[in-house]
């Protein structure tokens, strides 16, 4: 099963305290940020700090991604040269708008990897879709390369690009969310929802995360460690859901041996899609399917 990415915690790349403690917050994935959270005159400082942290700090099993600056900026190339040799789990590329953007990133990454004898499938790529053009092209971009492992919607930049207000109900970016999820699902990769910026509104975060989950997002980006538990709660199956899934899957294995494809559990029809959902629920709960 793929690594879980229920939460992806943004950590500003020039903040030593958060970088050092990153692995202790409990997020599934950490995003060490060299882009928007770093002032232009501190880009070198953040890059060098993240490099040293990657070399020396234990992240306790969390996935570690580094968000670099776009290659159109004066910073992106240096970011890749310094970070690729340290082999983070993934590179996150901001403002991906066209397949040429992604092709260029892959070419540069491969050149650096060749210089350091790193195979081309070791470091994954995550892209951010945060402009209207990116949304329009997301289906083409999503199928371009096998290294692409997740797509994230950048809600703040997208609303700015569309010249609309960023609202709590996210109505302005609703279509973009759905298109990004579809593009990701069609290519069997993760879709990560944008951040919820009101740190004090815990119920609002819960509602938005439930909406994200129902749309098909596999996780949500978070900007404060306080948001992690709420998102995990929403994305973790309840005991009742696990029990139901267990029952369905157990019955499925029995019926399969009898050559029966469609059957009923507790009076409700079970067929292949229901079994697939049950399997997914059990996997999220870390239940070994072989032992059922």
């Amino acid at each position: 099963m793929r690594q879980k990415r229920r939460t992806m915690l943004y950590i500003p790349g020039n903040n030593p305290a958060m970088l050092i403690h990153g692995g202790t917050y409990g997020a599934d994935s950490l995003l060490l940020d060299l882009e928007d959270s770093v002032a232009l005159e501190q880009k070198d400082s953040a890059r060098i700090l993240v490099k040293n942290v990657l070399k020396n700090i234990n992240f306790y099993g969390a996935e570690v991604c580094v968000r670099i600056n776009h290659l159109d900026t004066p910073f992106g190339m240096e970011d890749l040269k310094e970070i690729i040799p340290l082999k983070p789990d993934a590179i996150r590329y901001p403002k991906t708008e066209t397949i040429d953007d992604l092709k260029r990133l892959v070419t540069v990454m491969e050149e650096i990897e060749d210089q350091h004898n790193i195979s081309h499938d070791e470091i994954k790529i995550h892209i951010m879709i945060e402009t209207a053009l990116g949304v329009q092209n997301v289906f083409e971009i999503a199928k371009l390369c096998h290294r692409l492992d997740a797509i994230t919607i950048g809600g703040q930049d997208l609303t700015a690009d569309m010249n609309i207000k960023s609202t709590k109900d996210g109505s302005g970016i609703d279509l973009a969310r759905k298109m990004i999820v579809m593009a990701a699902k069609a290519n069997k990769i993760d879709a990560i929802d944008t951040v919820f910026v009101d740190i004090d509104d815990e119920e609002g975060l819960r509602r938005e995360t439930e909406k994200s989950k129902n749309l098909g997002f596999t996780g949500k980006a978070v900007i404060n460690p306080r948001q992690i538990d709420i998102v995990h709660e929403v994305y973790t199956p309840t005991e009742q859901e696990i029990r139901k899934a267990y029952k369905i899957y157990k019955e499925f294995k029995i019926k399969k041996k009898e050559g029966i494809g469609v059957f009923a559990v507790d009076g409700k029809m079970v067929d292949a899609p229901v079994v697939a959902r049950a399997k997914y629920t059990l996997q999220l709960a870390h239940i070994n399917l072989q032992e059922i």
Partner: protein
Amino acid sequence: MKIIKKAQAGSFESSDILILAENPEGVKGRVIQLNSIVEKQYGNMILKIVNNVLDKFEVADIHLVIHDKGALTPVIKARMETVLLRASNNQKGTMY
């Protein structure tokens, strides 16, 4: 590496370290002023890390003023590397 201008890196934030580097005329050797909240316990270790980075970058003559707020080794190394690259005008990919 030759120090050709004043530079600084880091901050006064907790777990960080602020380092100012310069090479005033006439200064020979390494002059290091350390001020740390953990100086009694870790002062010598901090100085050792600082000197190791200076050795790595082959810096002979420098004046450093250091204010430490409990930075760990990777942070001290990073801030030292940053300040030396800036002070020698070798910083890349930044608007500093």
